[in-house]
């Protein structure tokens, strides 16, 4: 008695995705199955950009505003990238905003009040972040206190620490040229194109290397057209971006020339690549996803679950500390409100809009970047249209709800299609 059920494996031998048509077909199947990936965030970004460009063609759709937007989005993006590690475990870090503020305060005090060289101040800033992350991680992983409670405490406590570090006076100015350069300087146009070449050629080579390796091992590979399309989705937008940013955007060219890719763009790219590599290609990254997906299965497979949790909280807090440096660089100072108000909530919103799940196991570094851009486009575009800051909060809230609904619906579809 032989019973044949489910789909036969004929597709395996027929090399799935060997034509662009079947690749498109497979992609739509994935979408229908609830695996929407970064589609909602990209769609939202495009819609918002078109919307604001039509309403405010002169102010929003200018190269000057494009550069501003990328710079302003960076700090929240960095906090969000760190949060991805924490959210992947199904945990939360409510204190990330004030971790950024506290770390920045430590750096500013060392730089300005004690005249310490910037590398030491930056190191102290990162160590501050790491210590905060270690403390939170130990409490969550070893004492099993819910991360919501632990980081609620760090949210409150760090505000106090920050006030004490900053001390009387309220604001510490930052005048170190290296620190200020991160958020305020631009690459020369030539270096902009070098950046473009390095990134697109690097991406193409690594993609082709993977394909060659799979082919040698006799495993199915994507169609050449699809591979070319994938490389183009990185190279073409980057080329357009570099081209636009290399144009003169100064109001008065005689006083000062303003052109080139802001330094923060390659700075962010480096972190995106490093952290994506860490999550997708290394043992640690695989174990992060495993712990987020099924902690008990991970434990039985011999994975050190508390260790993974502690490291993720440390990464989250160190990324927040880097965001603190960016805040200080952008504002030329650190004050008790640095990293405060909605900073953290915008960062959580960015990851969710990007497609990271708050239930753990699902999320990518790219989510934080795309979601961060969506949040910043709203924050940058709406004030041009209306003076009411109330409207801005409401619109941000609606976009967040929309993203959460997309996540919920796609999760339901995924559950339904999982036969």
């Amino acid at each position, binding site marked *: *008695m032989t*019973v044949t*059920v*489910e*789909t*036969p*494996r004929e*597709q*395996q031998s027929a090399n*799935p995705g060997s034509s662009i048509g079947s690749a498109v077909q497979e992609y739509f199947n994935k979408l229908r*199955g609830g695996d929407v990936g970064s589609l909602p965030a990209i769609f939202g970004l495009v819609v918002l950009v078109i919307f604001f460009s039509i309403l405010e063609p002169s102010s929003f759709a200018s190269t000057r505003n494009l550069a501003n937007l990328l710079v302003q989005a960076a700090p929240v993006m960095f906090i969000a990238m760190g949060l991805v590690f924490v959210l992947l475990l199904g945990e939360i870090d409510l204190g990330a905003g004030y971790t950024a503020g506290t770390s920045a305060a430590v750096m500013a005090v060392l730089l300005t009040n004690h005249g310490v060289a910037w590398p030491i101040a930056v190191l102290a800033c990162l160590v501050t972040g790491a210590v905060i992350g270690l403390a939170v991680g130990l409490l969550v992983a070893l004492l099993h206190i819910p991360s919501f409670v632990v980081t609620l405490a760090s949210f409150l406590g760090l505000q106090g620490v920050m006030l004490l570090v900053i001390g009387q006076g309220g604001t510490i100015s930052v005048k170190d040229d290296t620190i200020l350069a991160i958020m305020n300087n631009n690459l020369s146009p030539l270096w902009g194109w070098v950046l473009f070449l390095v990134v697109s050629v690097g991406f193409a080579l690594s993609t082709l290397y993977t394909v060659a*390796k*799979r082919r*040698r*091992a*006799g*495993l199915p590979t994507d169609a050449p057209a699809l591979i070319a399309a994938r490389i183009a989705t990185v190279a073409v937008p980057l080329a357009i971006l570099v081209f636009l940013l290399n144009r003169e955007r100064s109001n008065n060219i005689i006083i000062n020339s303003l052109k080139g890719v802001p330094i923060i763009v390659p700075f962010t790219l480096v972190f995106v690549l490093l952290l994506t590599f860490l999550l997708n*290609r*290394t*043992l640690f990254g*695989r174990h992060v*996803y*495993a712990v*987020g*997906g*099924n902690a*008990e*299965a*991970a434990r*039985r*497979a*011999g*994975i050190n679950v508390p260790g993974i949790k502690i490291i993720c909280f440390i990464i989250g807090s160190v990324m927040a500390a880097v965001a603190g440096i960016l805040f200080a660089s952008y504002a030329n100072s650190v004050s008790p409100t640095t990293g405060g108000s909605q900073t953290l909530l915008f960062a959580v919103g960015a990851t969710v809009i990007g497609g990271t799940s708050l239930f753990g*196991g*699902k999320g990518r570094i790219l989510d934080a970047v795309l979601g961060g851009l969506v949040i910043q486009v709203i924050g940058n575009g709406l004030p041009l249209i209306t003076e009411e800051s109330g409207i801005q909060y409401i619109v941000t809230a609606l976009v967040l709800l929309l993203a959460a609904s997309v996540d919920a619906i796609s999760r339901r579809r*995924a*559950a339904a*299609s*999982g*036969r």
Partner: protein
Amino acid sequence: MTDGTTDAQAGAPLLSLRGMNKSFGAVHVLKDAGIDAWAGKVTALVGDNGAGKSTMVKGIAGIYSFDSGDYLFDGKSVHVHSPKQSAALGIEVVYQDLALCDNLDVVQNMFLGREMRTGLTLDETTMERRAQETLAGLSVRTLKSVRQKVSSLSGGQRQTVAIAKSVLWNSKLVILDEPTAALGVAQTEQVLQLVRRLADNGLAVILITHNMNDVMRVADSIAALYLGRTAAQVDAKDVTNTQIVELITAGYSGDIGLSPSVAKEAVA
């Protein structure tokens, strides 16, 4: 072997337990129980709820250690006190709840905790190829792609992945805890075929089950536990369905099993 066993099994067993005892406080769960498992054969471990099946398996896997008894593996007396030790011997247990990560794909699950690496990075191509070879070796044709996420798999497919995971590591003995519970008819059939193939590939298989149909379909040998004692271990072809049910429920059936007096004493 315990009284009343028809020992017609050929060759030396890979795993042989004799006179195993295990108590939890005042509760004497296993009383001189034993089981044999041969390479290339499916040994069904049957018994009513509370007969001691789980305790026996956890003892074999090293999750509990037996209080007393002889644990022979591959002809040598061994002491297994931790899951790591049993894994080092080549014993793999597939538990009922499977312990798979839904958000990872088939390859990632099969290599979870034992990922292969080249330098700093994961060696995805080698892992994918080995996973495919393992599945092909078990004639698994129900998976569309080994890069499918486990969340998109059916219950039978998940069971298949969990079983394939256990044979990836040169294991010699695979213990399956109720692999067909909660599966539909067609999927049960798939899993039973897979169980049969494991044995045909030369592995020793211990199959824990409540389902008499499963037992009659795939088992070569049947070990019946009755209130912590081994009622009998018999060749599957020598007994009928009814006889096994009697062994499970009364501890004896005709002239096989415990002597009626011992069986009654066990109840008291």
